[in-house]
Structure formats: structure tokens, C-alpha cells
């Protein structure tokens, strides 16, 4: 009878521990994943913190924490991750009662983008490893990976030409009410521009230099579509880097920059457009927009259609806002006839606009343009093949 009692008690204990773990393993159990920083630049290393809290008296011998994030964030310790369509990470924890464990995972940002982690899956075991339990928890953490900047020296020629054109345009129309500086009188200056007070103070003739009447701005047109047989992401990413570098350089010269692209927001799926601005946070806004831009949508609008609808059509609001005082910079690896035609029409409105054409080495420029078109300002940009 005593032996039977022993066996019954043992069986009961085995069942009871299973029931205990089944019902209480997730009580007070929480797990979170958070990026240590909100933004990083392509190629940089960043870190992620995994936190597991077991706020109860039941210890957990083994706890699997699984989550997925963008495949272009590559962990430095790759043992626990498998990269397919996403980067799937699986880590193992072991928690004592009332214990919080934090683990730091370092990774490299291989590509620009907006990366989020929305869910964490947990699985635990009972004491005798006879049952396995599952739990899904929501997570809300995100990080921007901005495109890397290109060496501005390489961009010096188109940049100088652009700023030169802007300076020349601005000098044509002067604002009589806004004074920029005072200089010596030179032959040909209007008598109306003489600053008599300054002349009396210095004893020489001095004239007012007026500020330009219109504030010129640059509209960056980023085309992510491709007319190639195979989608070339290398060219597209280089275009995005060019766009980011141009925006950075122009904003550092206090030139307002607007951005229009046919890419869609990776979260909202809306077309991306950033109005002109030159404030302190504008570069950050440009970089965030570029990080969020997604060009993988098969229904991506072509750049020529976008130019047509936004800047050439009479009904478009942007046409009236940007037509007179804007220089356009098109960054597109696409060499289609329709795009060339639309670009010519846009350049007719705003002469001096530039097309930066990213190409692979040895690739011909075969744009169908007229000789007398202002599209002469074309800058092929060589992008080496990916090894």
C-alpha cells in the first residue's frame, strides 16, 4: 500500500508541476526589445537591448525569445539569427524568480531603411521538460537607417554649377526693401542706391546692396523606378545617397530644398513629398523620408507621370508653387523616352536644371533629347558593379 502511495504521489507531482507551469509560466513574464538609438547611418553599428522580466516566484529554466526584423540589419554575432526574407533572431534566457535580464545585441546597418520590431514570441518549458508553452507579446520599437553620404568632392562640379545658377538667378531681381550690405560706389550705380548717411560718415560714396527679391530653391526629384530587365538596387541606392548628399550640401549653404520621389512610404504606402525648407531640422526630415522610401511596389508611378501630374499639369498645386523660383535636380538611372520628354518640358520652365544619371561603367547614355534643350546639363555618375 505504501508503494502504491509513493507511485500515486509521484504521478500526481508530475501532473501538478505541468499544470502549475501551464497556468503560471506567463504570469509576471514580460519581454521587450528596443533599439538603443533612434537613428543610424548606413554602414554604422548599432545595438539592440532585449529585456526579459520574470516577476513571479516560479523560475523559468529555459525561455526562447524570438523576433524578426529587417534583413539588412546584420547581427555581429550571427549564430542565433537566420536571414531569409527577414532576419529571424532566437535567443535563450534562463530566469530566476523576480529577476530581470538584459542582453545587448550589436548589429551593423547594411542598408538604409526604416526598421521596426512589432512582435516578440516567447516559448518556455516546464520543470521536467515535458511540455512547451507559447506566448506572443507586442513590441513597438523602430529605427531609421539614413543613407550614407557620398564624398562631396566628387559632387563638386554639379554642385558648383547649381549654386552658381542660383546665385545668378537671385541677382537679377532685387528687393528694394531688404538691405544685404553696403559697398563702395562704382560707375553705373544708380543714384537711388546711394546711402547718404554712410557716405557722410565715411566721406566716400557708398551704395546699398539689396537682397534678392525671390528665394530660390532646389527641388530634388528622385526616381527609384527602373527600366532595366533586372531591378538594379545598387543604382537605386546610389541615387538615394546622391540625393541625401545634395540635400546636405545645399542645406549647409542655406538653400531651401524640396524633395519629390515616386517611392512610397514603407508604412503608410503614401507617395512621398517634402515641401521646401532650410531650417535646422530639414536635413533630418529629408533623411527620414529617404530612409522610409520604398521602391519595391510593382505599381510604382513612373517619374515622367509624376513630373507631368505634379509640375507640368496646370491643375497641380506644386506647379504654381515651384514653377518660377525652383531649380530641378533629377536623379534617375532611367533613360526612357517619356521621362526625357517630360524632363525637357520641365527644363523649359526652369532652365539650368540638372539630371544626374547614375550608370554602371561602360553603359552608354542614350537619351533622346534635342540639341538646343537645356538638358545639356547632364551628369553621368558612374557606379561600379557589385562584386
Amino acid at each position, binding site marked *: *500500500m*505504501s*508503494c*502504491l*502511495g*509513493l*507511485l*500515486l*504521489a*509521484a504521478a*500526481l*507531482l*508530475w501532473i501538478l*508541476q505541468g499544470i502549475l507551469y501551464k497556468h503560471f509560466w506567463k*504570469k*509576471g513574464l*514580460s519581454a521587450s526589445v528596443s533599439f538603443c538609438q533612434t537613428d543610424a547611418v548606413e554602414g554604422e553599428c548599432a545595438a539592440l537591448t532585449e529585456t526579459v*522580466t520574470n*516577476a513571479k*516566484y516560479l*523560475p*523559468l*529554466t*529555459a525561455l526562447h525569445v524570438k523576433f524578426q526584423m529587417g534583413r539588412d540589419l546584420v547581427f555581429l*554575432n550571427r*549564430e*542565433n539569427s537566420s536571414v531569409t526574407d527577414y532576419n529571424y533572431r*532566437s*535567443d*535563450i*534566457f*534562463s*530566469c*530566476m*524568480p*523576480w*529577476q*530581470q*535580464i*538584459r*542582453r*545587448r545585441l550589436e548589429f551593423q546597418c547594411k542598408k538604409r531603411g526604416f526598421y521596426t520590431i512589432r512582435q516578440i514570441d516567447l516559448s518556455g*518549458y516546464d*520543470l*521536467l*521538460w*515535458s511540455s512547451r508553452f507559447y506566448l506572443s507579446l507586442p513590441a513597438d520599437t523602430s529605427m531609421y537607417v539614413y543613407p550614407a553620404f557620398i564624398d562631396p568632392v566628387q559632387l563638386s562640379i554639379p554642385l558648383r554649377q547649381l549654386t552658381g545658377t542660383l546665385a545668378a538667378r537671385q541677382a537679377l531681381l532685387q528687393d528694394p526693401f531688404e538691405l544685404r550690405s553696403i559697398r563702395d560706389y562704382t560707375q553705373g550705380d544708380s543714384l537711388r542706391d546711394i546711402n547718404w548717411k554712410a557716405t557722410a560718415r565715411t566721406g566716400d560714396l557708398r551704395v546699398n546692396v539689396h537682397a534678392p527679391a525671390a528665394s530660390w530653391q532646389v527641388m530634388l526629384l528622385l526616381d527609384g523606378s527602373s527600366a532595366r530587365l533586372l531591378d538594379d538596387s545598387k543604382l537605386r541606392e546610389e541615387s538615394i545617397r546622391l540625393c541625401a548628399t545634395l540635400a546636405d550640401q545645399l542645406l549647409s549653404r542655406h538653400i531651401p530644398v524640396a524633395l519629390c520621389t515616386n517611392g512610397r512610404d514603407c508604412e503608410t504606402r503614401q507617395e512621398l513629398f517634402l515641401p521646401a525648407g532650410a531650417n535646422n531640422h530639414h536635413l533630418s526630415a529629408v533623411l527620414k523620408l529617404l530612409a522610409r522610401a520604398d521602391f519595391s511596389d510593382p505599381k510604382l508611378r513612373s517619374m515622367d507621370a509624376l513630373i507631368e501630374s505634379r509640375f507640368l499639369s496646370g491643375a497641380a498645386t506644386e506647379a504654381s508653387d515651384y514653377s518660377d523660383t525652383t531649380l530641378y535636380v533629377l536623379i534617375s538611372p532611367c533613360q526612357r523616352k517619356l521621362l526625357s520628354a517630360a524632363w525637357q518640358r520641365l527644363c523649359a520652365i526652369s532652365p539650368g536644371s540638372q539630371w544626374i544619371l547614375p550608370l554602371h561603367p561602360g553603359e552608354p547614355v542614350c537619351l533622346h533629347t534635342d540639341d538646343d534643350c537645356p538638358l545639356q546639363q547632364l551628369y553621368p555618375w558612374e557606379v561600379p558593379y557589385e562584386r
Partner: protein
Amino acid sequence: MKDNSASKTGSRRISWPRRLKNHWVSHNQNTLHLSLGAFFAGLFAVGALLRSKSGMEASLLPGRLKTMGFGGLLLVLLLVFLHMNLHGTDRFLHHFRDTGNLPTGQMRQVSFFCMILFLTAALLCMAGAAAALPALWTAFTSLFSERSDIASPEADALLFPESPADTPDLSALTEKAGSTPSWLPVLEFLMTLAALLIIAALVCLLLYNLAHRLYSFLLRRREWDDDEKVFLKPTLIPLASPKEPSASKTSKRKLSFSRPSSFRDEIRREYRRTIRTGMKKQKNHPAPWAAPAELEASAGCSDHVLHRIYEKARYAPDPCTREDLDAVRRSKASRHDPT
């Protein structure tokens, strides 16, 4: 859980107990455990059979066999639990052997902690169940036998007449003792109580020390991986949920509202009472936006002391004192009785 220290050193030979332990942990030992269990259960059965035979009543062998069988079975069951945990952990670690940041040290600590508690609980439960089950069985059988046999007329026929056992006459050994003094049982009781208390205190102290040492051993900070570990303060409320005011706190707050607990509250209560009385006399209603001076004007009360001390109680950061309250009460008394 398997000891791989020898494989790391390569040339070092593994001692046979360690090899045995490794083999026991890493392989499925159901057959071994079943055989051992059957063996000890058999021992127990043999002991029980021998005891049931009348010839072996006086011998110690059946009792020893039964005890050995019972103890062995108990140990085998504990061993089975331990093996289930260790074997499961070993399989898990083997499956995830290529995983980075595998917290083997932490897992060992947690498993040790869990199994200490579980095996202790299992030992107590199984011993308790083994002790309780025969008693329960006897109670059940007696209950059923009473229900079934007493009413039957054949029961008496089946019963054998029993002769009373011959009890030895021990009267020669006993002498007539003198009457014990009345204080002796009291003293004996007190001494027994004191001894029991001392033993209990010593046992408690010993257990406390043991538990404390075990707790500090288990929960001490160990740096076997790069994870940051923090022990939380145990609470009955889950950490994630905000603290809700308990019923006792609410009742305390209600109590303090209905009955002022500080001089400041008492002074403000006195002021409210004065204003309310004045308003009733003047047949006015207190405006919620009114300042103290306006309230006093509409209530027809012109007590400067009350006004000053109320403003202190209402707006000043300094706490009110007993002197303030006394001053308010004196002022109230002088208002009612100007002489």
C-alpha cells in the same frame, strides 16, 4: 549538463564516476529506472509476504525488506525526477549547442534551484502520501466492512470465538508508590515546555541559517555571461499594472476627510463652520469662486485672527501649530461670549 571539461583538455582521462554520470544524464534511462523500481517494489512485496506468514512474525527480516524496498522505491522515484530534468536540459543544450550567448551557467543555477525545491517537496509529499494511504485504506475498508457485514446474519457464524490473550501478571513488579507532590507535574510540564521551546528555537535558527546560506548562494551575482541581471523586489501586484488604491487606504482617507487629523484641517473645518453659520444668518449662499475676505464679508464675519490663521492654513507652505488652533478657538469663544 553533461560534464565536458575533460573533452576540452583532450588528453585528460575522465574518471569512471564522471563517465557514469555523463552516461546517465545523456541517455534515456527508462529501462534502468523501471528495473530498479521493480526490484525495490519486489523487495517490498517479499517483505510484506513474509510478514503475513505467522512464522516470521518475530523475525526482523520482513520489516527490513519492506523498509529497504520502500526507501529504494522512494529514491528511484526521486532519481527519475532528477533524471528527467537533467536529461531534458542536456537534450536542450545539445540541440542549441551552436547558439551564441547560451546561458549555461544561469541554466545550471536555475535548474539547481528548481530541483532542490521540487525534490524536497516531492520527498515530503511522497513520504506523506505513503504514510497516509494505508491509514486511509484502513479507514475505508473498516467503513465498508461496517456497512456490509454488521447487518448480515451470517457474519456471526463466520466469526471465530476469540480467547482473550493471556496477559502476564506484572503486579509483583509494581510497588505501591507514594502520593506525588502537586507541584511536580507543573514543574515537569514547565521543564518539558522549556526544552521544547529551546529545541524549536535551535531548529528554527538552524533552518534559518541554512535557508539564508542557500538563498545567498543561489542568488549571489555570478558573472558567467555578458547579460545584465537584476533581482527585483517581490510584490504581490504585477509590475506592469498600475497600483490601485486598496480598500483600507480608501477607508483611511475617508476617515481622515470626515475627521481632521492635522491642525491645518481642524482650522479649515472651524472656518467652514463659521462661514456656513454666518451665511445662514445672512441668508446668503457661498460663491465657489469667492476669496476668504469676500466670504467673510458675505457671511458678516469680521474676525481678523480667524482670517489670518485660515489664510495661513489654506495657502502657506508652513504647517499650522497647536497655538494657531488654540488662537482660533479662543477667538471663536470671544465671539460667542464677548465678556
